[in-house]
């Protein structure tokens, strides 16, 4: 395809690259703006208008307020617990389900597949879900955010497709050596499907990091709140009182604006840190999911 390019193609190429540069700018600049604003002096920032190309003034006051806030730290801790426990349970349940659905023998397999896939297209709705979880006495325990999302059917299908691609000869030799299904799953299939497992960790981990709806409907106790619910108080309902004590009401507005920017940065940094390591799995993982059975 590397032949001569016509004039039309060259013009197209130039516009395409300009367009891509714009996409790059439009995607990243909002985050850069927040980053610059968070390191800015809140008073100078208030007077500043238009785009930021660097912090105006320099101040760590906003970050001090955020890290001095007990809620943020508590939210961080809770979210970490939910991410670790939730993702572990997700991996266990999803691989069990995917293993069974990828077998050819059992005659009830198709019924299971139907039961699981049906839930992708029809659901009982938010209110019955709420009542059922209440009825199971999970409200105001951390299980309310860990158990209900234990299996994501879409992820289950991605994993099933990957497991089904493992050559049967691999497990046959293990079976001759006396291995049962549990051993085959954990000692043979999963080690052979590590790219998919990595993608699952990514998908489920990000889900738990970002999840807030279940927490907001099931948690009354603030000590259980994940980071996202404290973020909602700060960013959406603009409640920064707990961090601006001692400031006069005039100062408070400036300071709380800075706190919002710093909070966004603090809440997004973990994603940015793991992102470069995980992004190489994206294409691979999605491709597996894109393959229709």
């Amino acid at each position: 395809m590397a032949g001569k390019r016509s004039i039309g193609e060259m013009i197209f190429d130039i516009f395409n690259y300009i367009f891509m540069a714009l996409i790059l700018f439009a995607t990243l600049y909002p985050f850069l703006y927040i980053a610059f604003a968070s390191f800015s002096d809140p008073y100078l920032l208030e007077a500043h208008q238009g785009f930021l190309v660097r912090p105006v003034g320099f101040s760590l006051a906003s970050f001090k307020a955020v890290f001095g806030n007990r809620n943020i730290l508590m939210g961080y801790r809770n979210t970490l617990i939910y991410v670790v426990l939730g993702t572990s349970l997700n991996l266990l349940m999803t691989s069990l389900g995917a293993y069974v659905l990828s077998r050819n023998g059992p005659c009830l397999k198709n019924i299971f597949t139907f039961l699981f896939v049906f839930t992708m297209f029809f659901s009982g709705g938010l209110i019955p879900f709420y009542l059922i979880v209440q009825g199971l006495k999970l409200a105001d325990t951390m299980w309310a955010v860990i158990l209900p999302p234990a299996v994501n059917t879409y992820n289950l299908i991605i994993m099933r497709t990957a497991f089904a691609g493992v050559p049967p000869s691999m497990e046959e030799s293990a079976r001759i050596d006396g291995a049962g299904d549990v051993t085959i799953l954990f000692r043979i299939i999963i080690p052979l499907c590590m790219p998919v497992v990595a993608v699952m960790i990514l998908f489920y981990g990000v889900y738990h990091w970002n999840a807030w709806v279940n927490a907001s409907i099931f948690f009354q106790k603030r000590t259980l709140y994940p980071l996202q619910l404290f973020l909602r108080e700060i960013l959406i309902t603009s409640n920064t009182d707990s961090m601006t004590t001692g400031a006069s009401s005039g100062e408070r507005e400036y300071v709380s604006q800075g706190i919002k920017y710093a909070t966004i940065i603090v809440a997004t940094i973990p994603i940015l840190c793991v992102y470069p390591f995980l992004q190489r799995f994206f294409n691979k993982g999605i491709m597996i999911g894109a393959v229709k059975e």
Partner: protein
Amino acid sequence: MKNQKPKKSLWWDIKKYHQIYLMIIPVLLYYILFHYGPMYGAMIAFKNFSPGKGIWGSPWIGLDNFARFINGVYFERLIKNTLTINIMNLLFGFPAPILLALLFNEMRAKHFKKVVQTASYLPHFVSIMVICGMIIDFTNSKGVINDLIALLGGTRSSLMLNASLFKPIYVITDIWQEVGWNSIIFIAAMSSIDTQIYEAAVIDGAGRFKQALHVTLPGIAPTIIILLILRIGQMMNVGFEKIILLYNPTTYTTADVISSFVYREGMLNFSFSFSAAVGLFNSLINFTLILMANFFSRKFTETSLW
């Protein structure tokens, strides 16, 4: 495993695969509790639910809740908002990642391509709370967008308080957040197109534009159709997360959709039966839509979900 004998009893099957059936029990239990449980619970839509009597014990009232919703003052507004947001999403949000994938496909500078792609996936991973916080900040009367409007001679105003702007803001920010991520599946589909087809097209004298039109696009057509079916199945569905974070009483007229109404009625006003009825109404319409979309697609394009 391969030479299984034809037609054996269920009991024989369970005995042979007992380990497999044991392994599925937790997963089955999960689906029964958290997916089929709520489907059973959806019967409160036909009841006058009171927490003391429970789901089964509450008295039946037939279709009263549905009648109340359909004859209610908000019915028209909710249907209209839900449909318009989805139609706007279908018109602009659906083609955008396909177009982006086609343009990515034409890029020769490998490193720049990788940089743009990687960056474009990023907003997908940022939490909706942060995204909405940014939207609210950028659109307030002192925000960046108003700085630009003032610079161009316009007057400052709080954009999120303007009901006529809610839907555009919702849809544009949705595209901004998801376009890169949604393009991955099309890029993956493109990479599985046989290169020999391109070579044949070159021999036939096709330029890059013709190749994109006659090779790439048909190559990803099945993927496009599958995603279109799924999208049509969601036609009466708008997730409430972003809506309830961005709307406020002044923008309810254009922002309130079925799911946010269910959330408000059920979780904030505690009318469980009524909001369950609204939710069930919505689920049934969506389910019908996806069945229809799948049926027509199978009939006319040979591509279908099942």
